[in-house]
């Protein structure tokens, strides 16, 4: 069972009052509890079950402008006292930093919590196993699906309290249900794998088993007997699950810490065009039931909606208190990064994207790290499908795609098929003129 608010509050209070007694001038503490119950299945047979329970604290103490942090999972009173003592002692000898402080009080979240982030549903392991077996059953019903890499179901529930010495104290429960299915296809000595997964805050919102299994199978089958193509410049379509990766590197590149240090290729681009006119990016924390939704960040600051990119121009950054001071801006509740970050829909249909050129490469998977946010250089290993005259023609693998994000951003066109499946989401994306490395 998930620990209730009073229990977590009690620990938080203890930490704050003890730190204060030991000489800290300010303190902030997060107390978290989570329970997750997972099953994994292989070839329609139970492969394993795991139950995880974690209770932990993270405490930051300040003495004037000095700051230190400890975290612990060992919460018996004797150990906790020793740790708080250690934290305060470390604070004393850590050098001062004028910008260290708690967040501005007037930015704290206040108000109703009505985003529906917690589903009470409790699934017995037996039900989870049935769910996943059905998904695998569906995948195995396809010719040439010969094996699984393991499929699984996980149910995670957590609760937390964030409290600090300037009076903030709040927290809430969240839940996640995740189902995944990963299968192996084989034909003529070619062996490929692919997966589908679905993760939602509410059990009823995740993909149904048959959809999960058939999608995984379909993807793994499409990759069989790939060809390597020769090196050339091509227009590339990124499947939604790959396209959203551009948002992850974008969010690192527009963090206030990267701006404060100048370690981003977008350093001088605030209020300037970085994308084409039709591109808009929002970060919206208040979408009901969404995976990235939250009320406030780890500093207690309300996470307001942001228009990060408007008509192609960089309009706002992801800002926390400390780095905000460096760049003379107020925190916008992004101390732990973006919330629900997404490209708004473009004006082309998926079919129009496929028909935008006689020859296109449709990328379904990339491997490798990819983006260097300091230089904007982008280079990944990739596989996908060749598209000729609007039709998928053959699978392609063992190629690389490379470019620079400055150019890539200007050459993006988006389809109108946005869905909120993850915490970052993109419609299908076309990027014109990328360099493919192959034979």
């Amino acid at each position, binding site marked *: 069972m998930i620990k209730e608010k009073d229990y977590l509050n009690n620990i938080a209070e203890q930490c704050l009052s003890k730190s204060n007694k030991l000489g800290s001038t300010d303190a902030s503490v997060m107390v978290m509890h989570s329970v997750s119950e997972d099953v994994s299945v*292989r070839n329609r*047979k*139970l*492969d*394993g*079950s*795991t139950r*995880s*329970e*974690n*209770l*932990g604290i993270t405490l930051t103490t300040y003495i004037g402008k000095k700051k230190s*942090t*400890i*975290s612990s*999972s*060992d919460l018996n009173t004797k150990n906790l006292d020793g*740790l708080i003592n*250690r*934290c305060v002692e*470390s604070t004393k*000898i*850590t*050098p001062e*930093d004028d910008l260290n402080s708690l967040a501005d009080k007037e930015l704290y979240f206040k108000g109703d919590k009505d985003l529906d982030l917690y589903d009470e549903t409790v699934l017995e392991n037996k039900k989870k196993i049935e769910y996943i077996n059905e998904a695998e059953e569906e995948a195995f019903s396809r010719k040439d699906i010969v*094996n699984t*890499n*393991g499929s699984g179901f996980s149910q995670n529930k957590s609760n937390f309290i964030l409290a600090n010495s300037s009076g903030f104290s709040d927290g809430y429960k969240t839940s996640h249900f995740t189902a995944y299915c990963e299968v192996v296809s084989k034909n003529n000595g070619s*062996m*490929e*794998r692919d997966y589908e997964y679905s993760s939602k805050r509410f059990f009823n919102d995740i993909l149904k088993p048959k959809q999960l299994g058939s999608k995984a199978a379909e993807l793994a089958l499409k*990759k069989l007997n790939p060809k*390597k193509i*020769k*090196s050339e410049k091509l227009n590339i379509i990124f499947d939604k699950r790959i396209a959203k990766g551009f948002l992850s590197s974008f969010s690192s590149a527009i963090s206030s810490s990267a701006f404060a*240090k*100048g*370690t981003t*290729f977008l350093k001088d681009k605030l209020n300037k065009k970085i994308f084409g006119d039709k591109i808009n990016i929002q970060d919206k924390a208040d979408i009901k039931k969404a995976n990235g939704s939250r009320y406030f960040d780890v500093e207690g600051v309300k996470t307001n909606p942001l228009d990060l990119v408007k008509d192609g121009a960089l309009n706002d950054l992801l800002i926390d208190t400390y780095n905000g001071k460096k760049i003379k801006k107020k925190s916008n509740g992004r101390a732990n990064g973006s919330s629900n970050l997404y490209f708004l829909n473009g004006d082309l249909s998926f079919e129009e994207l496929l028909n935008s050129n006689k020859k296109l490469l449709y990328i379904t*998977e990339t*491997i*490798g*790290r990819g983006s*260097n946010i300091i*230089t904007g*250089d982008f*280079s*990944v*290993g990739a*596989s996908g499908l060749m598209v000729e005259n609007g039709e998928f023609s053959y699978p392609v*693998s*063992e*190629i*690389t*795609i*490379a470019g620079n994000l400055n150019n890539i951003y200007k050459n993006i066109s988006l389809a109108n098929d946005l869905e909120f499946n993850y915490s970052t989401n993109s419609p299908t994306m076309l990027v014109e003129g990328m*360099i493919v*490395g*192959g*034979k």
Partner: protein
Amino acid sequence: MSDLLKNSNLSLYTADKIVSDTLHDCDDGELYIEDTKFETVTLDDNKIKSSEYSIDSGYGFRAITDDVIAYSHSNEISEESLKKSSENLKSTLKSKKGTYNSEIKKTNQKFYNDIDPIETKSLNAKIELLNLMNEYSRSKDQSVKQVSASFLGEKKNVEILRLGGELLKDSRPLVRINISMMVEKNGRKETAVYGVGGRQSYDEYLKDGSWKKLCDEAFRIATTNLKSKPSPAGEMKVVLGPGWPAILIHEAIGHGLEGDFNRKKTSVFHNLVGRRVASEGVTIIDDGTIDNRRGSLNIDDEGTPTEKTVLIEKGILKNFMQDRLNARLMNTKSTGNGRRENYKHIVLPRMRNTIMLNGTHTQEEMINSVTKGIFAVSFGGGQVDITSGKFVFNCTEAYEIVNGKIGAPLKGATLIGDGPSSLKEVLMVGNDMMLDPGIGTCGKSGQGVPVGVGQPSLLIDNMTVGGTQL
């Protein structure tokens, strides 16, 4: 005597009773208890950002019958909590019956000392040194615009209680010192990261001014990259430098030789034991027994003593890396490769220090033999798809080779290859084997574990380079 139960209400006697009660009808399993202390001290943007310290202790209770694993972990080490876990495991495996084999190989081997690196150097001394590293780096040249340096220290104590009352222990220190630098000249920015580490005290890596060498190396790489030109795209010959580039071995071959993927037949190597998978000159081992190395362990996380496992000998595939579960199901023995990130995770077969042994060629011979190709000296990181065998890694320092000579530095190239075929394309194996500086972390199924790699220089006939120049 258990050291890790002493602050709890759980006695070793009771723990043993619960373990017996839970595992007597199982094929394998254990109670794994762990206590980890971890610190980071970071200097960033001219300031000590903060010092962080954490303690994490807990247990992971595992029961296995056939190929079904039941696992329950908690950071509450208590009789009540362990009983709850026991119920959970028993209910998962209730319809199964196994035979437990209590025997496990014993060892007194020690590849590192039982020290606590966090306590052997004061926080003040760490802060002072980070400030020195910052000042020294910035004084090297005006182009140095950002310096970030950090100390990461860990002390992990583990105890493994098996059915029959056997209690196996290990005490593992680990440190890492990192420096990253951003340089800017004529409007162009580049960065470099360098680090060292292993299972010794910080001072072993810092003494006699050797901390300056870390700064010098980061500066050298960053400055080299300021002069880099766009990388070519397409297939070409590749010379890999010695040491850290062995993450190619780790990605291309290593993961595919882990027992689980082969038992499940999802690795491209599963049916290739005894067959040629690499050129004649290629011998690769996975060694957990090198003194003070990041990937070394006295015992693995199931209590099996580590060893030096020959994976590929003169190009022929000899062995997979095994934990107890996969070894039992494949009728072989654990090679001491059973590892987990911490008590929150199940054991998987994982690499330790994966090393290609020396050949006979010099690096110069290799470079001289290439008309058009690239010389890759260092990598940022890599990834592999076990099933298709395709792997990539990103170069952080690379040069073009033109007519047998090293040319201009190249910008951010990605190399992509095919695991089973790439080692058959090794044309020359160097005589300059080097281990990496002690910075590797390997990720698998969401678990990160410290690993090492090593290799001599290598000439590979044909790999695809991902750049922007056609």
